[in-house]
C-alpha cells in the first residue's frame, strides 16, 4: 500500500465526501432492491378478481418514487466518487508538475521530454480509472457478493454452500496470477505509449532538421516500429486480461456442474428438496455476477498499480539540488571565491573544470575566454547550482553557495545562457519573468539598453506580441537580446553572460556591451566570450582550456605574458588587419 501513499492521503483528506458517496451508493442499492417486491406485489394484486385500483395506484406512485430516489442517490454517489477521482487526477498532476519544478538538470538529461509528458496525462488517467469507476464498482460488487453468500449460508444446505465456495480459491488464484501478468503487460503498454509520445515530441521539435535532410520517410518508418511495439504490447495485454472473465465463469460452471451431479443425486436420494436445489443455483448465479465484475476491477486495479509505480518512480527521484539544512536567506554583494574546485559530470571520465584558487571581488567584471568545451558554461552552471560540487569550493561573500537558499542564490545571480530559452508568452512576460507588475518604463529601459526596443516597436503589438515556442518568431539575435533585457531588468548582484551576444551583429554588440558596462557598474559581472574585444575591458580575465585555468590577469598583463590569450588575441588582431587591408 506504500505505492498508493499519495492516493490514500487524498482519500483521507476527502473522507467526508467519500463516506457520503458510499452511503449514497448503499442507499441507492437498497432502494433498488425494494423494486422487485413492489412490482411482484402489484401484479399479484392485479391478478385478483375485482382488485382495488387505488392500492395499485398507490404502488405505482411508489414505483415512481423509487425511480426518483434511485436517480437522486445514484447521481449523488457518481458525482461524489467519480468527481473525486477527477479531482485526484488533477491533484496528482499538479503535484507532479511541482515535483518536476524541483528536479535538477541531471534528472532531465536522463529522460526525454515526451516520455515525461506521458506521465502527466496517460499514467495519471490510468490511476484515475482505478480510483473512480473501479473503486465505485468494487464497493458495489463486494457488498452484493457478501450479502448473497450470507443469505445462502443461512438458507441453503451447508454441504451445497461448501460446494459454492469451491471455485473461490481458484478464482482468487486466477485473479492474482492473471492480475500480475496484466500489471506487467500494462507497464509495457504505458512504456510504449511514452515512447510514442517521446518520438512525436522529438519529431516535432526537430522537424526543421528532418525536413532539411529529407528524413521524413525513415523517421516515419522508425515511428511505425515504435507504434507497432504499442500494438504488440496492447494485444498482449488484452489477450492476458481477457482470460480472467472466462476463467472465473468456468470455475463457477464447474461448481454448477458438480451441483448438477451431487445436488441432483441428493435430490434423488431425498436428502434435499428440489426447491433447495433451485435456490442454490439461483444464488450461485447471483454470486457469479459480482465476482465477474470484481475480475474486471482487478484488471483496472492492476493497470492503476502499474501506472502508479511509474509515477512513484518520478515522485521518488529526489531533487539532487536543494536547500541544505541551515541554508540562509541573506542577500549577498557578489564576492565570489573559488577554492580547490574540481568538478566532473556524472558518468564522465575527466573533470570538466578544475580551478585551484580564484577570486572575483564584489563589483568587478570578470571576462572568461577559452576554447570550445573548456568549461566556461560549466562554471556558470556551478555558480547557479545546476550541479553541486563535492566540497564547498564555491564561496559567495565568504559563505559556501550551499549556505544560501536556492531562492536567494538564484535570485541574486542572473544568467543569460548561450541558447536562451524564451517562453511562448508575450515579450513583456518574457522580459519581466512573468512579474506583470513591473512598470512600463523599467521594461522599456531594459529593452532599449539591450537594443531590442526598436525591434519590439516595429511589431504591431509591441511588448504584447506573443512569441511562439522557444521564441520561434524572433531571429536568433533578437532572442538573445530579449534574454539580455530580461537579465538587465532582474538587476541581480551577479550577472553571467554566457556567450550571449554570439548572434548579434558587431555594431549592436558594441552598443550593448557599453550599456552593460554602464548598468553593471559596481556589480559583479561575468562575461564569457570568444572574442577578446568583449573581455578586454574586464577587471580580470580567466583563460580556460580543457577544464584548466591556463592564465589569469588583466588584458595588458596577459598580452605581456604570452600564452593562449596572446595567441587568441594575435589571431583576432591578424584577422582584423587582414580585413582592413584590402587583398
Amino acid at each position: 500500500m506504500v505505492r498508493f501513499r499519495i492516493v490514500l492521503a487524498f482519500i483521507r483528506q476527502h473522507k467526508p465526501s467519500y463516506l457520503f458517496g458510499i452511503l449514497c451508493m448503499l442507499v441507492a442499492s437498497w432502494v433498488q432492491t425494494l423494486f422487485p417486491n413492489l412490482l411482484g406485489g402489484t401484479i399479484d394484486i392485479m391478478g385478483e378478481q375485482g382488485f382495488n385500483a387505488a392500492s395499485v395506484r398507490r404502488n405505482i406512485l411508489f414505483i415512481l418514487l423509487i425511480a426518483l430516489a434511485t436517480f437522486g442517490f445514484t447521481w449523488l454517489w457518481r458525482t461524489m466518487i467519480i468527481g473525486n477521482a477527477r479531482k485526484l487526477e488533477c491533484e496528482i498532476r499538479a503535484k507532479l508538475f511541482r515535483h518536476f519544478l524541483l528536479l535538477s538538470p541531471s534528472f532531465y538529461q536522463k529522460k526525454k521530454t515526451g516520455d515525461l509528458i506521458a506521465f502527466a496525462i496517460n499514467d495519471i488517467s490510468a490511476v484515475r480509472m482505478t480510483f473512480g469507476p473501479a473503486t465505485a464498482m468494487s464497493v458495489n460488487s463486494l457488498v452484493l457478493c457478501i450479502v448473497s453468500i450470507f443469505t445462502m449460508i443461512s438458507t441453503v444446505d451447508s454441504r451445497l454452500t461448501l460446494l459454492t465456495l469451491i471455485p473461490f480459491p481458484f478464482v482468487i488464484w486466477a485473479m492474482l496470477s492473471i492480475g500480475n501478468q496484466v500489471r506487467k503487460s500494462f507497464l509495457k503498454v504505458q512504456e510504449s505509449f511514452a515512447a510514442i509520445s517521446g518520438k512525436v515530441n522529438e519529431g516535432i521539435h526537430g522537424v526543421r532538421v528532418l525536413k532539411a535532410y529529407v528524413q521524413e520517410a525513415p523517421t516515419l518508418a522508425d515511428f511505425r516500429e515504435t507504434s507497432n511495439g504499442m500494438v504488440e504490447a496492447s494485444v498482449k495485454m488484452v489477450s492476458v486480461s481477457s482470460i480472467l472473465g472466462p476463467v472465473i465463469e468456468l470455475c463457477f460452471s464447474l461448481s454448477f456442474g458438480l451441483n448438477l451431479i451431487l445436488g441432483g443425486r441428493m435430490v434423488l436420494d431425498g436428502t434435499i428438496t428440489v426447491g433447495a436445489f433451485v435456490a442454490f443455483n439461483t444464488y450461485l448465479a447471483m454470486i457469479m455476477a459480482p465476482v465477474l465484475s470484481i475480475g474486471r476491477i482487478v484488471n483496472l486495479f492492476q493497470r492503476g498499480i502499474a501506472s502508479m509505480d511509474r509515477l512513484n518512480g518520478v515522485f521518488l527521484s529526489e531533487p539532487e539540488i536543494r536547500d541544505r539544512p541551515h541554508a540562509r536567506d541573506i542577500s549577498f554583494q557578489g564576492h565570489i571565491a573559488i577554492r580547490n574546485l574540481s568538478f566532473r559530470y556524472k558518468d564522465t571520465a575527466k573533470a570538466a573544470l578544475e580551478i585551484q584558487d580564484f577570486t572575483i571581488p564584489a563589483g568587478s567584471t570578470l571576462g572568461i575566454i577559452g576554447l570550445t568545451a573548456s568549461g566556461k558554461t560549466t562554471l556558470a552552471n556551478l555558480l547557479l547550482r545546476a550541479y553541486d560540487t563535492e566540497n564547498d569550493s564555491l564561496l559567495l561573500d565568504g559563505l559556501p553557495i550551499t549556505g544560501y537558499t536556492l531562492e536567494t542564490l538564484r535570485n541574486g545571480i542572473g544568467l543569460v545562457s548561450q541558447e536562451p530559452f524564451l517562453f511562448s508568452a508575450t515579450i513583456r512576460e518574457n522580459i519581466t519573468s512573468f512579474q506583470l507588475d513591473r512598470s512600463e518604463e523599467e521594461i522599456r529601459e531594459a529593452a532599449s539598453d539591450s537594443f531590442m526596443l526598436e525591434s519590439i516597436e516595429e511589431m504591431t503589438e509591441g511588448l504584447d506580441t506573443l512569441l511562439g515556442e522557444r521564441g520561434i518568431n524572433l531571429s536568433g539575435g533578437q532572442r538573445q537580446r530579449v534574454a539580455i533585457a530580461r537579465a538587465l531588468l532582474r538587476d541581480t548582484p551577479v550577472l553571467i553572460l554566457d556567450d550571449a551576444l554570439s548572434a548579434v551583429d558587431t555594431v549592436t554588440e558594441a552598443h550593448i556591451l557599453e550599456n552593460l558596462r554602464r548598468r553593471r557598474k559596481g556589480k559583479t559581472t561575468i562575461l564569457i566570450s570568444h572574442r577578446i574585444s568583449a573581455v578586454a575591458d574586464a577587471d580580470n580575465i580567466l583563460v580556460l582550456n580543457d577544464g584548466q585555468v591556463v592564465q589569469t590577469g588583466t588584458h595588458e598583463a596577459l598580452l605581456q605574458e604570452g600564452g593562449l590569450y596572446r595567441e587568441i588575441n594575435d589571431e583576432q588582431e591578424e584577422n582584423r588587419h587582414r580585413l582592413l587591408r584590402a587583398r
Partner: protein
Amino acid sequence: MKSTMNRKKTDTGSSVRAEKNSGSFGLMEKHPGSSGLMKKNHDSSGHTEKHPVSSVMKDKPTIPQTFGSEVKSHSLRALFRLSRPWMGKFILAVGCILLVNAATLLKPWLLKVVIDDFLIGRKPQNGLYSLVSMAILYIAVSLMGGLFTWLQVNLVNRAGQAIIHNLRCKVFETILHLPLPWLDKNSSGRLITRATNDISEIGEFYTDVTVNMMKDILLIIGIIAAMFTMSIRLSLVSLAVIPVMAVLVWLIKNRIRRNFFGMKHYIGRINGFFAESLSGMQTIQTLRVEEARDKDFTHLNDEYFKTTLTQVRLNSFLKPASDVFQNIAIAMLLAYGIGQVSGEGLPIGILYAFTSYIKQFFGPISDLADKYNSIQSALVSADRVFGLLDEEPILEKPDEGTPMPDAAGRIEFRHVWFSYAEEDWVLKDVSFTVEPGQTAAFVGETGAGKTTIMNLVSGFYLAQKGEVLLDGIPVSTLKKADLRRRVASVFQDVFLFSGTIRDNITLHDDTSDELLDTALRASCADSLVEHLAKGLDEPVTERGSTLSAGQRQLVSFARAIAHDPAVLVMDEATANIDTQTERLIQEALLQVTRNRTTLMIAHRLSTIRHADRIFVMRHGEIVESGNHDSLLKHKGYYLSLLEECEEPVA
C-alpha cells in the same frame, strides 16, 4: 510506399476537403501567437493596469462554428471507413457474440431439463441422457462460451489496434509533412496530443464501443420484435417513454460534446505546457519563475478540472436516467393495465411478461447510455484528428515536382518579397545571384532577414512575390526531396536528436566511412569524437544537453558536410566556436567548399573574408554587395560593421 499513399489521397480526397479547410480544426486551436506579429490585441489596454493577466489565461477554447452534425458525420464516416479493411474481423467478432449468446441461453435450458426431467419427472437416466452427461455438457457449453468471449475480445482488440496504429502513423506522417509556417503557429504540445491521447480515445471507440454497441442494438431489436408480436398496444404503451428519452439525449448531446471539446482543448494545452516547461526547466529554475509557471499551470489544470466535473455530472445523469425511464415505463404499463385487466381485456400473464421485457429492454439501453459518453469523446477526438488530417492539401509533398538528381548550384533571387505574417515584409525586393561553386556571405544586423533567405533557399517558406531559383528552376516547383538533398543547412539553432553522435551526423542515411571522415575533419568534430569514450557511438541526450554549445555546433556542421550537398548553407555555424577552432574549420572547409556553392552568414567578418560575394543586409534589403575589397572601398555600412567588429583593443 508513402508517396503512393500521398498521391492517392490527393486524387480522391483533397478537392472534397479543401472547401472545409478554411475553418478546419487543426488551425482552430491555434497557438496564441499564431497570427504572428500582426493581429491587433483588443484587450491590450488592460495590461499595465491593476489586474495583469498572464497570456496563458487568455486563451480559451474556441468552439468551432461548424460544430455539429456536419463535421460529426464526417468524422463518423471517416471512422467507419478506417474500419473497413478489418470488417472481416469485426464480423467474426459479431459471430462470436452470437455463439456466446447461444451458450448463455443454452445453460438455463440444461438446468431446466435436469430439474424438470430428472429431479421432478424422475425419468430414468440412460446413456447420454443422464445427470452426469448434462453436467458435462453444461461445463462444455461454458467452456465454449468462455472461449468465444475471449476470441471476440481479442479479435476486436487486434482490429482496433491495427486501425489506430495506421491512424497514428498517418497523423505522424501528417505532422512531419506540415509546412513550417503552419508549425510555427501551432503549439507542439497540442500536436502531440493528436498523435497520442486523441488516438487512444479513438482506439477505445473501436475496442470497447463498436461491437458491444452492435450487440446491444441487436438485443434491443430482438426484444422490440418479441414485444410487438405479443401485443402491439402494450408495446406502444411501454415504448412511449422512448421519444422523451431521445429528446432528452438530444438536448444534452450538444452540452456533452461542447464539454468534451473543452476538455480536450485543455488536455492539449496541459500537454503543451508540460512540454514547454520541461524543456525550459533550467531556465525556469535559474530565473526563479517556478511560482509563475505553477500559477499558470494551476490555472490550466483547474480549467480542465471544471470541464471534467461537468462531464462527470452529465455522465452521472444519463445512466440513472435510463433506470428512471425503465420504472416510468413500468408504471405507465401498470396504470394502463388497471383499466384493461379489470375489464378482462388483458390476461395478467401478458402484463407480467411485458414488465420483464421492459427490464430486458432497458438493460442494453442503460449500457448504451453509459457508452454514449465514450462515443462522444471518441467523436470529438476524431474531429481533432481528422481536422489535422484535413490539412492534407497544404502538406508538403516531398516527392512531387520537377526532379533534380544533380545540381550545379546556381542560386538566384529575383525580386523576392517575403513576410511571415501578412504585409509585414521581412524581405523587400531582394535580388541576387550566386554562381555555381561560389561562396556568398550575408552580413547585417540581427533581424535583417539573413536566416529568412536561407529558409527560402531550402523551400521551407515560399516567397509571396518574386522567385527563388536553383539552377534556373523555381524552388517552388522543384521536387522538395531533391531540392533539400542538394541543399544542406547548418541551422542557427542547432538541434540534436537523442541517439548517438553517429546517428546525428548521418541521420537515417547511408554515409560512406570516407565521407564521414571528411565531414568530421572539415568540421573539426574529429577531435571531439576522439575525446569521447565511445567515439562516434557516444550517446547523445535529447537536444544534446550533455555537450557544450560549441560541440553541438560542430556536430551539426559535420552533419551538413556528411550529406555531400551541392549547396552548403551555414547560418552562423561557428558563432559559438572559438577563434582557433574556427580557423582550423575554415582551412578544412576550403577543400570542402571548393566545388560547391556555399551560402554563409556570420557576424565575425573574418569568417567571410574570402567569400566571392558579400551581401550586406539591412531591414530586409540588400544595401551593399561585392567582395570584401570592393566593399571596403565603398566605405558604407560594411565598413562600419567591420570597424566595430575588429575594433582595435584599447
